[in-house]
């Protein structure tokens, strides 16, 4: 098949009675067979929400979501077919009353897998999550990590075309977490299974994923390879900083030690013509540079690359471009608040 597994165009979603005006808006997203995508971003960014859309549990309120060449929401039969191929493991999984084996059997039953094949598939899946022989145990009284592993096995036993995982290793011990990553990579490589997982562990994202989608407040944040810096953090107790290049400090709030990766949302970066240096003040996170590239996109955004040994990507509303006095090759100043620096993870 040459179809994309998922193809999303301008997909929008809002909770009907949300406590806040959160909405998810994704201009475009394409996922192919065997691809592994990581969803990263702060709490409330919309990672879980996106996963429920990809699992066809919530229906987009706008835009086009095509799954394997079809609109899964056309009718209930389509939706059912789609859901049979894309299985979600939620971050706090629900286990049906009964035994672990009952839980793993459920998906096989609804798929009419013959009864005599089930024990083998169940056994294999439990082996993968390192709970061999746990079939007959009741699900009541499992520890947090044990429950998460059972849920993972329940999905793996179905050999789905797409595996959707919400913080799959958050409660799993570190060693097993690493081995689970290996299992996912292997299954994906061998069977072409597409995997989308959310994580707060940036190193896990970079280890496991082919691509990372960074979400913030329901929007994709475009980094390319820019706006994402690593370094060993130092701190004065109130603020911390890393120096991605000697002498260039990226400052963020709080007392942080150790190696960290941080990202800055392009929309949070102010760009000023170099002539207006006074406006930038002499606080932290002010960088001088030069515009190296400009793009204009449909959404009415201008993408400006600024280089000053580091490369940043910033966005400016098209309407403001003319007034800003910013154009290609012109020297500019960049400035952003320490509070708008996201620590995306610690990196080994």
């Amino acid at each position, binding site marked *: 098949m040459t179809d994309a597994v998922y193809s999303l165009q301008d997909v929008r979603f809002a909770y009907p009675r949300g406590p806040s005006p959160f909405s998810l808006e994704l201009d475009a997203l394409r996922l192919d067979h065997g691809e592994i995508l990581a969803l990263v971003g702060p709490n409330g960014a919309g990672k879980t929400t996106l996963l429920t859309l990809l*699992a066809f*549990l919530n229906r987009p309120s706008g835009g086009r979501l095509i799954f394997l060449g079809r609109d899964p929401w056309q009718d*209930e039969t389509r939706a*059912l077919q789609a*859901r*049979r191929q*894309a*299985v*979600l493991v*939620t971050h706090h*999984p*629900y286990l*049906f*009353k*009964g035994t672990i084996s009952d839980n793993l059997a*459920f*998906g096989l039953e*609804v*798929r009419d897998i013959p009864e005599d094949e089930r024990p083998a598939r169940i056994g294999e899946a439990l082996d993968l999550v390192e709970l061999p022989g746990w079939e007959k145990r009741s699900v009541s009284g499992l520890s947090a990590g044990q429950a998460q592993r059972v849920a993972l096995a*329940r*999905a793996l036993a*179905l050999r789905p075309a797409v595996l959707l995982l919400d913080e799959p290793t958050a409660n799993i011990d570190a060693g097993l977490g690493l081995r689970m990553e290996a299992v996912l990579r292997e299954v994906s490589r061998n069977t072409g299974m597409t995997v989308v997982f959310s994580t707060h562990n940036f190193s896990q994202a970079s280890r496991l994923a082919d691509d990372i989608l960074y979400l913030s407040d329901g929007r994709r944040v475009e980094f390319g390879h820019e706006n994402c810096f690593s370094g060993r953090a130092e701190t004065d107790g109130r603020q911390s900083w890393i120096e991605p290049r000697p002498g260039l400090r990226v400052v963020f709030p709080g007392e942080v030690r150790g190696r960290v990766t941080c990202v800055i949302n392009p929309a949070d970066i102010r760009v000023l013509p170099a002539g207006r240096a006074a406006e930038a003040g002499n606080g932290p996170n002010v960088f001088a540079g030069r515009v190296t590239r400009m793009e204009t996109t449909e959404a009415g955004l201008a993408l400006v690359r600024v280089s000053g040994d580091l490369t940043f990507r910033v966005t400016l509303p098209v309407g403001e471009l003319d007034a800003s006095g910013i154009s290609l090759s012109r020297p500019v100043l960049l400035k952003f608040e320490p509070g708008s620096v996201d620590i995306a993870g610690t990196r080994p």
Partner: protein
Amino acid sequence: MIAQEVFYAIWVSLKTSGLAALVASFLAVPAALFLASRDFRGKRLVLLVNQTWMAAPTVVIGLLFYALLSRTGPFGGLGILYTQTAMTVGQIFLILPLIVGFSYTALRQVDRRARTTALTLGASRRQAGLVVLREAKFPLLVAVLAGFARAVSEVGIAMMLGGNIRGETRNITTTIALETAKGEFTTGVVLGAILLALTLGINFAVIVGFRSGD
């Protein structure tokens, strides 16, 4: 009272009320599932009406169905007034809101994630509904048994629609009422005890049966 008459009355009670509980459950449980798993405008009103319906006295329900089923009424042609069928129909109507209310409460107790988990594992909407029912199996059983208890213990509908005709529609409760009217209070209490013993047995059998079916 002749033993044979008592046996017959027991049989009538169990048959009509058992059937009523079954039929009512088949209507009420899906309705409760619908209510419990969906939020829609007017849902509160539906629940309010259901709640109010529970306050309908048996005599009033009896009167309503009497008007419907009597010879000159719209369904008089069926000729089911003063039959066990009429009793069952009236009792279904009586216990519907009770089973709906009980089942609704029972089904709300099921984690919302049960349904979505079933869906994402590939269940159809119907199968996901069945999963929710299964997760609430025990409280649903309690709901059905409460409906049966209500039907088997009521007397107004059995009187009005069954007619308490000896050898035909006389059940335990109408027998008790009759014995009481005759002043045979002791007989009434003894029959009541028999009814309760039977219900205990049935509850026990059903609950144990379902437990072991796990």
